[in-house]
């Protein structure tokens, strides 16, 4: 079973990479960009077969290591 985890900066936390990307896209002539945010996307293959248990595990992983909950939010999707 696969856990697909999106880790994004909390609203209000400024995002230097996003800013720089936005700037660079502007430099390349892309217009009409109102904002860019960069986050992480982590895919984990789990031996676990029970979706509930898999989500619990993934959640624990985010809390302990994957996300810095001071500045980051995370979202977990489990697909069989």
């Amino acid at each position: 079973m696969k856990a697909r985890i999106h880790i994004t900066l909390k609203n209000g936390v400024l995002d230097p990479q996003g800013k720089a990307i936005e700037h660079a896209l502007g430099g390349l002539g892309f217009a009409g960009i109102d904002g860019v945010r960069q986050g992480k996307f982590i895919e984990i293959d789990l031996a676990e077969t029970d979706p509930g248990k898999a989500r619990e595990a993934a959640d624990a992983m985010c809390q302990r290591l994957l996300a810095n909950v001071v500045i980051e939010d995370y979202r977990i999707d489990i697909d069989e």
Partner: protein
Amino acid sequence: MSNITPEIVAEHGLTAEEYDKVLAIMGREPNMTELGIFSVMWSEHCSYKSSKHWLKTLPTTADWVICGPGENAGVIDIGDGQAAIFKMESHNHPSFIEPYQGAATGVGGILRDVFTMGARPIANMNALRFGHPDDPNTRHLVSGVVAGIGGYGNCIGVPTVGGETNFDPSYNGNILVNAMTVGIADRDKIFYSAAAGIGNAVVYVGSKTGRDGIHGATMASAEFDDDSQDKRPTVQVGDPFTEKLLLEACLELMATDAIVAIQDMGAAGLTSSSVEMSSKGGVGIELDIDEIPVREDAMTAYEIMLSESQERMLMVIRPDAEDAARAIFEKWELDFAVIGRVTDTNRLVLMEGNAVAADIPVPPLVENAPEYDRPWVATPPAGAPSPVEIDQTPMEILKILMASPDLASRRWIWEQYDHMVMGDTVQRPGGDAAVVRIHGSAKGLAITTDCTPRYCVADPVQGGRQAVAEAWRNLTAVGATPLAITDNMNFGNPERPEIMGQFVGCIEGMVEACKALDFPVVSGNVSLYNETNGSGILPTPAIGGVGVIDDAARSMTIGFRNDGDAIVLIGETRGHLGASLLRREIAGKTDGAPPPVDLAVERKNGDFIRARIAGHTVTACHDVSDGGLLVAVAEMALAGDLGAELSTPDTPEWLFGEDQGRYVVATPEPETLLASAHEAGVDAQLIGKCGGKTLTVNGGNSISVTILRGVHESWLPDFMAGPA
């Protein structure tokens, strides 16, 4: 019916004649794995088939040379029971295709070449050549290459202390990324690759093997064309963190006596490393494919043998030491697998279960490798330079030159490199040579890389001499005794006689200079086929020089130090403007012969300078190179943030001529200096004195040091700030 069609042979970069040799050696048709092994071993990159004939002419010996070309890196004796181990290597094609990873894995590869021999790397250098700044690709390539070199070197914690950077349209489709590593080992604890001890375990350590860079070695030997994009999947990703662990684990194991032989897996990975070890040791090696740590499922023997996955090593271990060795690699959380044995058959045998996946006699695979004496034509003499009309004042010219792509400050580059980690960087980037102290001692190594491709294309022989001489000069200018060089020969397609002629000419010039300066070649690398759609790069024999200085803290720097110090020019000024930077940047011409290098004078002047630095009679020293005298003085003023007043003829020839074998020094005691120069028969003249905030020629034409700094520092950052 045959499985190996002429097409398959061609795809493997082998000619029909070469394939006939394969059939003769095998006495039968090879299977795909065997063909793959022949193809990488006989690729230009691994076999040096076009260059070997000429490389043999390079001087490679001196009392202080412990190991010359042929091993993973060169080894020289630096006294106190220690050895310096160094080499330079190219990662040109991969860096063009994927600049970050290409450059990063280039650094990773050269680091392994050095620590395989038992050395702890203490410094990295990088010699870079990019296309014209206006080429749409250049900015992206500079940014990726520099980030990649920094990304790898910074992470593993080896300082990147210097290099060189040029821009020229001839590199538009073929940038050059040459990385150099210098390491230190005890001279009685150097490790070689010759396998020995029938029955000894062959051990694989480091990262797992994936489908990375399969056929990278053959790709590195193939001319580019417009569909090179298809070759992209061969790009490998570097893992500097794993390399750091591998470095520490290897050095820890090397402190014991467990290792019989060790060889990194570079280009052509497991193939070249196992062939190397068996051929050097005059033994056979039998490998069990199923024991090799792999990253992906269903990898074939062919893929495993040709994979160029990074951060891997092959070792032969003493039987009694296996457990201790395994424990060390487990501590560093790296794979450690016994994948085979040393045999007495002189054959490389791959077993897949009970089936034989490949069985090749090693001696003919290595000794009968193709070697070509390719036809060549000498480069026609460049002739007398055409006149250059100049209407700018000297300072207007200086301003243009100091802000030109080849002379502008490289700060934007070296600030992305950790050049201080390891705590022994005495001279950081920005001077003539980097000086890195040998840990725990006062002694230091001076390191530089040099080559002036515009000279090499105008006259390969003079260009080859000049590259070696400038490296020797840069080491001398910091007060070091030059000891030896490594080289990276970057050229176009050797199958074209005029390109081969450039190669032959550069080698000839290098041979002369190495002999005259007692500056042997101890390692090197050749990169050919740097050509896109039939147009080759400027011939670029990059030279990496290493010297030693007893008291690193007393090494000489280029910055003017004291108001009132006299400025003395060492070496004769004839005002040579052929192939000069002035000609190119101001007159828009590139014609004319390059300045000749008189090796006897070169040596006399250099030895004189070194003695003065040792005697503490000079307070600053800088060699005169690109852009000539006024540029050299300007660089000294910028480095010391102190102006100067020159009283010299103010002709372009005098101020911007690129005559060789010259140095500018500052000294509080000019009379003594001039007298000793006279004694030594060295050409020397007083040309001015340090002081003030401006640079002035003959009391008239002048420019403020601050303005000069502005233009010199801003070109590269401004260029890089342009659209991605």
